[in-house]
């Protein structure tokens, strides 16, 4: 009992003003920040790939395969932050066997599987099948085994079969774009539909999540592309890079406008929650919202990218700038997720008080775990790039 009271006393010391008892501890921790972040990267990377495939932006060709593999690697890990956040991770599969149509969260397993298996897996499979058949004959050992298994032992690489693959791949990408919107719109939907929380509850939420997802996915693929050409000691395709940067600029502008619209709407409507949110934004969220997300993650990249549309310095300098901006944008979007997920839990629904968020490095919900789930996708990506190098594929025109 002594411990219990001691605990209560300590807990109360991290609270300002009045909060309801169940608001003292944040239930959605850093791992829940990571989950929309990672799914966002998936959706964004996929949409970049679809630009090449459906919207025929041929100049983006060098990044098509990289974007798909990136999306796939991150998708494999997307559920892991959620699973490690669960009190009983060993029960995670139950979401699949007892779904309920009235709960958006209970549908997640199917949204996820659809996107992973029907969109990403199939698109990669049809895209790589011919190459896997060829590679299976050229290699030995583990690689050969993997190619055999992955291509399901098929051997038909006649032009007719390949043309069919290409056609089906195209159809899947067409289905994939709305699916990517669904996947990430869905994540925003979950937050947006929590009526009791004025920081989350806005119909714009899915749209904002979607555009920030595109921003982060494009920035990630851009960085992966830069790093990859560096590692492979290849000359980078500057036209391609400039085009990615151009798209990044456009989408970043839309994202900024949408988020601005959301905030302006909030200020104009000034509901009863406004005072509390105002204090939150200028208090506990000041650095993460204005400095990291707003200034460094949005304004600086927009201004720089905007300038680069008119004034083009030497390629080396541009590449360096793109690298830095990619990093900044990725950080900015991370803090956007942070501000939504953590920010939404810092104020009391009584609007009279605030709590604070503390987490440790170790432990199943600590920073350590979050860092692990950010590193694992890159390991998977390295493996996939080794197994299925896009640059060794036979050129297909995707027409």
């Amino acid at each position, binding site marked *: *009992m002594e411990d219990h*009271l001691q605990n209560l006393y300590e807990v109360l010391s991290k609270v300002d*003003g009045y909060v309801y008892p169940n608001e003292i501890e944040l239930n959605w921790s850093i791992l829940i920040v990571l989950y929309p972040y990672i799914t966002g990267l998936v959706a964004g990377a996929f949409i970049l790939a679809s630009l090449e495939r459906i919207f025929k932006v041929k100049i983006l060709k060098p990044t098509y395969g990289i974007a798909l593999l990136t999306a796939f690697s991150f998708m494999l890990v997307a559920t892991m932050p959620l699973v490690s956040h669960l009190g009983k991770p060993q029960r995670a599969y139950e979401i*699949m*066997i007892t779904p309920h149509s009235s709960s958006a969260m209970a549908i997640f397993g199917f949204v996820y599987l659809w996107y992973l298996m029907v969109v990403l897996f199939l698109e990669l499979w049809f895209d790589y099948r011919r190459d896997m058949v060829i590679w299976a004959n050229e290699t030995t050992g583990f690689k050969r085994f993997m190619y055999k298994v992955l291509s399901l032992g098929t051997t038909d690489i006649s032009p007719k*079969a390949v043309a069919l693959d290409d056609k089906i791949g195209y159809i899947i990408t067409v289905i994939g774009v709305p699916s990517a919107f669904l996947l990430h719109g869905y994540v925003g939907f979950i937050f947006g539909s929590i009526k009791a929380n004025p920081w989350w509850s806005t119909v714009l939420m899915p749209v904002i999540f979607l555009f920030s997802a595109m921003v982060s996915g494009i920035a990630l693929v851009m960085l992966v592309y830069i790093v990859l050409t560096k590692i492979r000691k290849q000359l980078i395709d500057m036209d391609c890079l400039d085009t990615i940067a151009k798209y990044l600029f456009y989408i970043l502008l839309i994202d900024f406008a949408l988020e601005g619209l959301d905030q302006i709407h909030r200020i104009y409507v000034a509901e009863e929650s406004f005072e509390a949110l105002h204090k939150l934004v200028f208090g506990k969220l000041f650095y993460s919202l204005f400095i990291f997300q707003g200034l460094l993650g949005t304004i600086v990249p927009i201004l720089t990218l905007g300038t680069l549309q008119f004034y083009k310095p030497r390629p080396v300098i541009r590449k360096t700038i793109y690298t830095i901006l990619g990093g900044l944008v990725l950080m900015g979007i991370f803090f956007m997720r942070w501000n939504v997920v953590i920010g939404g839990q810092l104020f009391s629904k009584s609007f*009279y008080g605030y709590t604070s968020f503390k987490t440790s490095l170790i432990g199943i919900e600590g920073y350590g775990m979050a860092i692990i789930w950010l590193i694992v996708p890159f390991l998977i990506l390295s493996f996939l790039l080794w197994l299925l190098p896009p640059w060794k594929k036979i050129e297909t025109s995707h027409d």
Partner: protein
Amino acid sequence: MPQHLKRLIGVFVIFILFFLVMRQVLRPKSFGELGHFRADAIYENTLRPMHYAVADSCTKCHKDIRSDKDLGFHAKLKCEVCHGPALKHATFANKFKNKQLPDSLVLYKPGERKDCAVCHQRNAARIKITFDTINTTMIHQVDIMKHHPVDPKTNAALKCIDCHNPHQP
């Protein structure tokens, strides 16, 4: 249909069949009997040990304290709010009348300053706002650090219960 598509569809069909079978196998036994949840969960919860005795159960043996308390400001507080869960105590303490209670039956006696602070520390948010007045008397609040911390004569640190009777403050 080309051979590779057949194989692919085969793989998907196997995958889906496997899912459907596993779904039946893994579904908890009592799921859905009473609604969209595991009916056994209710039963399992009834098996959990209880910790709290009911508010009136203390009166049986501590009548004096109860009647003291009923006359004071703490009348509305239940004993277990301060002394903690006491079911075990209320069930077994009788055997130790006028003897030393064994450790497992001894209850916490919240006599330190911080114990009273849990409810009485100044807290601007714990006020009652009524139609046109701000009423700060929902719970009387004192500044724990400043409200008689030491005895002016002997300079000894004072606990709240040196002056206030916790059962009849």
